[in-house]
């Protein structure tokens, strides 16, 4: 599959050279790439899911290594792996169910699945569902199980074709289902802003003062949605040095007729007592509920805590990372060019290493991200609703399989 390889290389290149900005764009492109990888992948007769998982893992490993700081890539790779596992499982249960109904043998089919045939089909289905997919709180609460919806469609498909026990169609079926599910995932990523924004009215009340830092598309849409529902409120925007994206946000807010106040980052503490709620975007949300966010966010979170102002983080589900942060200030950080901070030409004489001891006396450090520990976060609003930081592990269990936390091929694969 030369064209997939070219696509992968192209994307790898972009990731390596930091040409893609923003986790949403990265997530979407990763999902699209993996979709084409899956559709190009030839599946063997046996163990199709395994083949797909291996293929996705192989590419996922490269993608993650290309830009380890952009966690969205890893998240999407894991999501896709989870989808494959889910689809495989539901297909198996459906097939077994189908076999049960028709009471036709075709035992090899079950032999492929490691030792499933020895158990009663119904028991397998039940066991598989209970072990591999713990019922999510979400599904229990909403009473419209996502998991139930998928097998239904697949089993209905299985009724028409599967009864003939056509193996080739089954192999195509898995791929087809997986691609369908990945499409849904892409759709989710694309529409995550709207889904989060829908909840805006529940959180923003009349005459409130909202503070935000830097610029986040999610926050922008969230505020717009509240504005459209005729809520009147004011927004304080901290400019978000050194990239000053807050300026752009202020511009857009004003264009939509929102009362906006622009402040410097250092004025946050002075202004926080007048603020009713802090609403910010995030770069990634870790498994412990900690947040990787643009630099300066920890300061805002601490100020909010000091004045007991709710600190609300908006994050699409693609930003949910199943990993726990270890030394996030360094390892999950990106040091950008110092030119964002100061003008090279003006300071060129401070960096003349030709005189003095020869070692630079002026160090300019420009980290891109901050880590906000979970205890400072009051609420997460994702496309699946609002959650406490302590609830994150549940969401992660919904979205990811425990087997995929480490995306690495087995020992057979070299580098």
């Amino acid at each position, binding site marked *: 599959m030369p064209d997939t390889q*070219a696509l992968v*290389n*192209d994307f790898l*290149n*972009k990731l*390596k*050279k*930091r*040409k893609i*900005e923003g986790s949403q764009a990265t997530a979407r492109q990763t999902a699209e790439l993996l979709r084409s990888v899956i559709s190009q992948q030839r599946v063997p007769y046996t163990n199709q899911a395994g083949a797909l998982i291996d293929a996705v893992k192989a590419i996922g490993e490269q993608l993650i*290594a*290309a830009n380890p700081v952009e966690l969205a890539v890893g998240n999407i790779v894991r999501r896709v792996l989870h989808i494959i596992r889910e689809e495989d499982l539901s297909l198996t249960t459906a097939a077994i169910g189908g076999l049960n109904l028709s009471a036709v043998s075709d035992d090899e089919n079950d032999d492929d699945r490691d030792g499933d045939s020895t158990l009663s089909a119904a028991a397998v289905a039940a066991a598989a569902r209970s072990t591999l997919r713990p019922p999510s709180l979400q599904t229990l609460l909403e009473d419209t199980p996502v998991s139930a919806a998928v097998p239904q469609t697949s089993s209905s498909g299985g009724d028409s074709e599967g009864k003939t026990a056509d193996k080739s169609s089954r192999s195509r079926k898995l791929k087809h289902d997986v691609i369908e599910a990945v499409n849904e995932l892409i759709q989710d990523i694309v529409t995550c802003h709207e889904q989060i924004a829908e909840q805006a009215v529940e959180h923003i009340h009349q005459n409130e003062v909202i503070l935000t830092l830097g610029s986040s598309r999610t926050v922008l849409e969230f505020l717009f949605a509240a504005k459209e529902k005729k809520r009147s409120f004011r927004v304080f925007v901290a400019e978000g040095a050194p990239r000053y994206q807050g300026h752009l946000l202020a511009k857009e807010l004003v264009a939509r007729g929102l009362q906006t106040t622009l402040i410097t980052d250092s004025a946050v503490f002075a202004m926080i007592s007048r603020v009713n709620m802090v609403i910010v975007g995030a770069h990634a949300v870790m498994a412990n509920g900690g947040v990787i966010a643009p630099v300066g966010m920890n300061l805002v979170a601490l100020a909010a805590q000091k004045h007991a102002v709710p600190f609300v983080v908006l994050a699409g589900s693609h930003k949910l990372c199943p990993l726990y942060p270890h030394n996030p*200030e*360094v*390892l999950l950080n990106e*040091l*950008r*060019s*110092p*030119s*964002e901070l100061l*003008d*090279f*030409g*003006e300071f*060129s*004489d401070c*960096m*003349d*290493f*030709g*005189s*003095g*001891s*020869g*070692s*630079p006396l002026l*160090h*300019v*450090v*420009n980290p891109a991200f901050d880590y906000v520990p979970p205890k400072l976060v009051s609420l997460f609003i994702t496309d699946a609703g609002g959650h406490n930081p302590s609830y994150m592990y549940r969401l992660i269990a919904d979205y990811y399989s425990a087997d995929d936390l480490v995306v690495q091929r087995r020992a057979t694969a070299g580098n």
Partner: protein
Amino acid sequence: MGAQKKRAAAAAAAARVSEDPDDLARQPLQAILLADSFTTKFRPITLERPKVLLPLVNVPMINYTLAWLEAAGVAEVFVFCCAHSKQVIDYLENSEWFSQPNFTVKTIESHNIISAGDALRLIYEQNVIHGDFVLISGDTVSNMSLTQALQEHKERKKKDNNAVMTMIIKKSKPSPITRQSRLGTDELFMAIDPNTKQLLYYEDKADHSKGTICLDKMLLAENPSISLHNDKQDCYIDICSPEVLSLFTDNFDYQHLRRHFVKGLLLDDIMGYKIFTHEIHSSYAARIDNYRSYDIVSKDIIQRWTYPYVPDVKFCGNRATKLERRGICFTAFNSEIEQSRSAQVGSFTVIGYGTKIGSNSKISDSVIGEGCTIGSNVLIEGSYIWDNVIIEDGCELRHVIVCDGVIMKAGAVLKPGVVLSFKVVIGERFVVPAYSKVSLLQQPTVHDSDEELEYADNSSGTVEFSSIQGTADQSNGEMTSESSEAHKPKLGTGGVGYIWSICEGGQEEEWRHSVAPIPEDKLTELSEAMDDDQELVTQDRTALSTSGELISDSNASEGDDNEDSKDDSVYFEKEVEATFLRAVEENVKVDHVILEVNSLRLSYNMTSADCAGAVFYSMMKLAIKTPHSSASELQQNTANIITTWQKLLKSYLLEIDEEIEIILKFEEMCLESAKEFSPLFARILHILYDKDILQEDAILRWADEKEGADESDKVFVRQSEKFIQWLREASEEED
């Protein structure tokens, strides 16, 4: 961001032959990369490896250039290889650059090319360049976005067909002491039209000894405003129209891109070709021209000015490195290094894959390559150590470059500025003197400091090298053993290699371009030399001032006046003193002296108060110079001189202001130049009063003025308090 995305989209569209008419008109951007600098500044290293393959923070330089070209949306690059072309081509073939989508790299090889001009003529003959192209040499590091510069270039070209080139410049202040930029190149003077950004003047070899630069009068006459800069750095990135190549062909004597081509175009007013500049602000661009710029650019890369081309970003198949926090700064580490617990690795250090560091070694501000072995108690500071180097226990390296395969025996010391070429062995406890260059190859004997012969010299160097290389390869073992015997004393016991003698003329200048920082004593020496030339420099300050805009003549001359008046008063005082002394010696009549001083006053445009001050100063100077043994004798001398010359002094004391000026002058003298007078202040004041030189009004006014002054200023008022008191009473009595 928007621009970046647009550019990426445009590049992709161009490659796929988009149907969009706008994109069809835009040809894929081409670039010429000169993989040879046509100079000898990196010798002896470049005798064995081409400059573009030298590792810069563990990545061969050419990768930075190619990665940037690719990111900037260039679709096709022609790499021109000359010296060591085989090595360059081999390297590129094994690299990933040949397999990139939307980015083609083609090599052009030639061996008998001795200058950039020749290279461009050859490329013109091959007829491969179809549209605008980027001209860059393979030792340039940049992260700028070409979009804007390219667009400006195209728009100008549309309006004016003669706008053939856009030069990228960046602000960077030169050091006022060494007269060189931070990259170690000479201070560069450019005259740029501030409105159109047209380059009008380019001089990188200004004569600093005179401290002047010459601008053509026509330049000022023809342009309504020009701004003269010495704080711009030439990035050696040019966006050229295809005409540039034909220009090189037409003018077959153009060799050097700047010295001949740019200056040639600027002087040539028949064809009217124009060069424009584009200044970059937030992005980075620099060319590695000499060892100093190698050092500086390495540090810039480690400090991340070149982001995303930094050690922990994999931009060209380099191995993964991680950043680790050391204190407040960051150090790039490879995941697989062996480091002793007691070894100290400081900030801003990059350590390559598979390197071992022994106990108690200290490393700071350095770059260490792959597979090096560093013993214990080694000190490495500000140094560049390439791959597979073995440094035994107790060595000291400060600000040096150590190439691949070097072995340093225990206790060897490298002084600042040393360059060790490939596979040199330094003997035990041997101290390599500062700025020396050591190589396995002997120094080529032909060496001429003449600039023009540099190219010819270079070509002979490459030919010569190939022969040497041949023998070296065949009989590497023999040769090393041979040379170690023959040159045992030179590099200590077991040392292998030749210390190159520093070529004549270059001796003094060696510190300018080396990796080591400029030594303190050189700096003080230079700044002292500068102080001697202070007068010259102050006079020229208007001409040299940073980016001063010379809009109109009157403006400039006004500035001159201010500067001059300060100098003039000093000159004037000296002249008056000389006149006065001569008058004393030769017994010139007082009237004549008055005449002479008056003429001086006219020529320097001074007030009579200045004259009075100067004359009085001269008189007191004379008094103090006359031999005396005690204070009373000095007082007597002063009284004599004042009596003799009172007429001269009185002729300038027209009003009370001048008298006050004299008192102030006297006070100043007592404080500074002639402290002997200070105890006598009141008495001499009295003498002056007695001789009717000073009137009581003047003294009282002076006393009143001093009333509000600082305590330190009041010393002399206190001293003469009685006298003043007496004067006050006297005046009251009169009333």
